[in-house]
């Protein structure tokens, strides 16, 4: 009986490891291999055509790739920061409400239930230059007499996409920060009031250090599934028009499925994976530091 010798903890995490290995690790190893070949979906024999780091070199030399890379970083930075600040603000607003707070909390969670692809369609509809809510409202109010091309102009399209993404994900921050606010002991906040703090000062010196771990948890979670934004972008503009909103994920999807260049797409896929992993680990480090700061480390 071999399993008798295995430690209990190992048996308990074994199912998780098996599933993750089967569904994520093996395909990733396969894609790692294929990223060194000229694999094309349409010609299976190319899978064995080893071309070394050619795909990676091609990506590094490609202007399109770097443009998408830069846009992705920009998109992530703006979206995550906005989500954090708005989430913090929303959580503070809701936490100060005494009557009807439960209802507000439920409403606040509303966008979390939306499928990202639905969010994409929803805002594609709302920002539609012809029948969209935004243009209709602006024109009816007389604020604009022409149809604003929300999803065509480069800057406006980026704005619309970020708006959709922020609308969808701010509530993740808000909920986690709200959970943090509820877990703060009441006493130190009152002590700060008596010690002469203005509301802003007690927030800055007492509340903020306490909710920092929660902010980092939210950041870590968000960077784990930040690629859900792909669904939104894919639906709203699909990187277009003319690559004006191309981000890494839409570029990968197009290269792989439309152009069928699997090897090349997988090479770029690896770049996006490391990007996500980098962000996640960064926030995990921050999280542990903040926990130590509060004297509550594991």
């Amino acid at each position, binding site marked *: 009986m071999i399993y008798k010798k295995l430690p209990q903890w190992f048996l308990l995490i074994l199912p998780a490891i098996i599933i993750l290995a089967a569904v994520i690790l093996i395909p990733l190893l396969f894609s790692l291999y294929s990223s060194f070949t000229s694999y094309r979906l349409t010609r299976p024999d190319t899978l064995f055509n080893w071309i070394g780091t050619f795909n990676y070199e091609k990506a590094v030399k490609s202007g399109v790739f770097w443009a998408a890379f830069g846009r992705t970083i920009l998109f992530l930075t703006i979206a995550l920061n906005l989500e954090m600040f708005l989430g913090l603000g929303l959580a503070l607003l809701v936490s100060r409400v005494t009557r009807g707070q439960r209802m507000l909390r439920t409403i606040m969670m509303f966008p979390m239930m939306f499928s990202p692809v639905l969010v994409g369609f929803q805002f594609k509809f709302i920002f539609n230059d012809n029948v969209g809510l935004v243009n209709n409202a602006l024109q009816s109010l007389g604020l604009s007499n022409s149809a604003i091309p929300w999803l065509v102009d480069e800057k406006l399209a980026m704005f619309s996409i970020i708006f959709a993404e922020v609308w969808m994900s701010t509530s993740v921050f808000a909920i986690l920060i709200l959970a943090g606010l509820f877990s703060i002991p009441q006493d130190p906040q*009152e*002590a700060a009031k*008596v*010690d002469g703090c203005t509301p802003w000062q007690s927030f800055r*010196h007492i509340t903020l250090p306490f909710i920092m771990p929660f902010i980092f948890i939210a950041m870590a979670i968000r960077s784990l599934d930040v690629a859900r934004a792909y669904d939104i972008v894919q639906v709203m503009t699909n990187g277009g028009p003319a690559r004006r909103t191309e981000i890494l994920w839409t570029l990968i999807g197009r290269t792989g499925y439309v152009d069928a260049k699997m090897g090349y797409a997988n090479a770029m896929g690896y770049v996006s994976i490391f990007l996500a992993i980098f962000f996640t680990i960064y926030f995990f480090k921050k999280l542990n530091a903040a926990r130590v700061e*509060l004297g509550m480390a594991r």
Partner: protein
Amino acid sequence: MAQVILKNIVKNYGKLEVVHSINLDVAHNEFVVLVGPSGCGKSTTLRMIAGLESISGGEIIIGDNVVNNLPPRDRNISMVFQNYALYPHMTVRENLGFSLKIAKRDQTEIDKSVDEASKILSLEDYMDRKPGALSGGQRQRVAMGRAIVRHPDVFLFDEPLSNLDAKLRAQMRVEIKKLHQKIQTTIIYVTHDQVEAMTLADRIVIMRDGNIEQQGSPTQVFENPINTFVATFIGSPPMNLLPGRVGKNMLEFSGGLILPIPIDFKDIVKPGQDIILGFRADHIMPVGHDLTIDGDSAMIEMSVGVSEPLGTETLLYTQLAGQEILAKMLRPRIVQDGETLTFNLDLGQCNLFDAVTQRNLR
């Protein structure tokens, strides 16, 4: 330094009124203790003075200003909380200096005040630790240090010692008393422990169910409780109470016990009135083991149920007129359970309460 005046202060939580129009004057440098059973509204009152709770009616004056709507930071008070309320992410030094830093004092002044406070409370060795690494007593001292660095007009304490063990509590009691002598500030101190109240207070304010029952010096409330509640709440052990009735020039109790009317009450009571006789264990002692009594006294025979030797004295649990009675024995000897002794009751120290209103008849 400042006086604190509460005029007809009321507090409602929704429809529920928890503090009913109380009045209180605290003078400069006075040490006032609010005492009462838990849930009687002490903390609420203190927090209204601090500005942590809004007031629903009345007026609060600190110094010469009405502060009804001022936030805590504009009242120049400081407060020590029951659970210390230290900032867990700051060291002891930062905790102590926080309020001065907030007030934008310069660093040398902050350092000076912090050092001074740490000396008063002997905290010098822990200055760079975080609260998580301190014992209960040390945390308590940091909390007090944090309150004194600001030189506030008024100190507020909310049950600051209730999380400490008995020995530490006694020790901190002395330190608080010393602190008051050293820094000469008005102090309002909340506790549910009457021993703390008796030992610390210049003036005790006894609260029940959102009302002030009685206020006065520790001796006043101990010797002349205004009603049976104060009589049983203040003093340990609590005052013995015997319900009875006024007869012809005497008091009648169940079981045929008859006692003379204490001289102070002779002209107050009317025959046929239902009364309660109150006397402390210190005033009923076995003959030969008692103090000399100046005025009238009465001899009573009782059999001892259980005795509790405490060293210099022994507590005797006995039965009188169907009531459990506590008596004291000085210069004690061993007492057998069930032994019958003759006791001397000091009538001059007795109180009479009206059985209906429960108020002292004096």
